[in-house]
């Protein structure tokens, strides 16, 4: 089965590394197939950043997403641009302090996390992308946490592995709690807009 995923935000948030870790975990540590492609604007840095990851249990042919099963949005622009292209029952994961969710069809499953703030609590804002990967791992149900641990260890500088693993755990726990919250307490899409009066 093919799962189409997009990570999107702005330059500097570590979008490409987050997507790379998800792909690496699947392709190398889960024994599946993963294809990651990324969108480049003409700019050298800054501006919009977006990466696509396709996961499958068989070789992947078409290299891009058509309609995403999962969208991870870390900026308002990313949400506005890509959310309409999701599958109607897709999973939307947002950085809830950076994204005001509005205009969804209402059939999507949606979860938010203050990834940047959680990363800052760990002492390094730059690991917000890894917090997001943990959140993704918990809510997507794709892959074992150990596979992500290995992918992270293979992807970041040696001295920063522990910090990044902590960031992953933080996001994972947050996602795990959100996933197991009773439906009545589940963050409704309408509620989320609430955080941003």
């Amino acid at each position, binding site marked *: 089965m093919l799962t189409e995923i997009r990570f999107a935000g702005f330059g500097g948030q570590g979008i490409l590394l987050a997507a790379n870790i998800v*792909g690496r975990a699947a392709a190398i540590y889960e024994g599946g*197939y993963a294809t990651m492609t990324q969108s480049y604007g*003409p700019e050298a840095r800054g501006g919009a950043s977006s990466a696509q990851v396709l996961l499958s249990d068989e070789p992947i042919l078409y*290299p891009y997403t058509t309609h995403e099963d999962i969208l991870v949005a870390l900026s308002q622009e990313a949400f506005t641009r890509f959310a309409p292209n999701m599958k109607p029952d897709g999973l939307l994961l947002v950085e809830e302090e950076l994204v005001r969710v509005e205009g969804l069809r209402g059939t999507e499953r949606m979860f938010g996390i203050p990834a940047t703030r959680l990363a800052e609590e760990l002492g390094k804002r730059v690991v917000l992308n890894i917090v997001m990967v943990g959140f993704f791992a918990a809510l997507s149900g794709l892959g074992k946490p150990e596979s992500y641990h290995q992918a992270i260890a293979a992807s970041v500088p040696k001295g920063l592995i522990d910090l990044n693993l902590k960031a992953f755990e933080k996001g994972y726990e947050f996602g795990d709690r959100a996933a197991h919250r009773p439906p009545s307490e589940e963050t409704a899409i309408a509620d989320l807009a609430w955080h941003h009066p």
Partner: protein
Amino acid sequence: MHADPGAVLTGVHFLNGDQACCEGALAAGARFAAGYPITPSTEIVERFASRAPEVGGVFIQMEDELAASITLQGAVWAGARAFTVTSGPGFSLMMEHLGYAVMTETPCVFVNVMRGGPSTGLPTLPAQGDVMQARWGSHGDYEIIAVCPNSPQECFDLTVRAFNLSERYRVPVMVLMDECVGHMTEKVVIPPAEQIEVQPRRLTAKKPGDYLPYEPEEDLVPALAHAGEGYRYHITGVTHDEAGRLGVNAAAQDKLVRRLCEKVRRASEDLASYELEGPDDADVAVVSYGITSRVAERAVRLAREQGLRVAKLRLLTIWPFADSAIRDLAARVKTIVVPELNLGQLVREVERAAAGQARVIPVSHAGGTVHRPEDILSAILEGVQ
């Protein structure tokens, strides 16, 4: 001869096509690259510049593509295995020195990660618009070799092959990637060094006094001598005889240029590599290469789900062109569909090789993304009629 274990990154990796191409070059023994980095090929030399010091290699960023494409040839004559990487605009500038490598029989590799053109075009988006330029871009008569990967794994594998073929035939070999494959990240398995065959340089066994630098061996390829080893050697782009003396006349031209072409032509059937799959009684065949072959395969599957009998032929080597494979295919199908990310280039070769035995339908695309599988499927459906 096997690859040098010190330079082979044996293991299972998650690499993009550009990075895998660099690792292929290192595994094949490349220790020198000269370039003028250009999107979407930059990651190849970026990685080479960082890996080279670990393996005693050198990367030089030159002032432009003309300089890069001749500097690498100097490195070859000094004994290195060398390559350059570029994309459309730089590839155009390199054409003069590509011809020089053909004429001087300098074994080297040119990597072109194709992007949309003409001119600056689409720096960050894919196309396959340089396939005819790769064949005919430099002036004069010559034969060339070009390989065309469709995944990061093949960027590794076919870059190794490109270096081996350049050393075997003493001809510049092109690796024609595209932006999508170059920037696509997938699993890449790099085997142990002892499982990677590396073609040794064809150095002469003769003594300096007995050696003629352009005297062909049985397969029409002469043996080489490196600078500083005591051999008299005239490296020249002017028409020359076996001793390297200039011969600006019709007889010398005929002898030299025919040999330069013939050494590749007579190996054409060995060089042409392709994958053919599908039923013997197929009505339609899809011929494709590079990234388009993956999209084409999706279209073929959609067609088969509709009960159609469809074969597919994927070219891994596009030059020399797989004439006999296409001829045989054309003899047994009604229609050949040729999708490519240009407005109709390699389809001309397919038409030539098919020689009227089958109808040929191009599926053109100006580049910037890949085909929609449905568009290739429509051509297949049309071809069944």
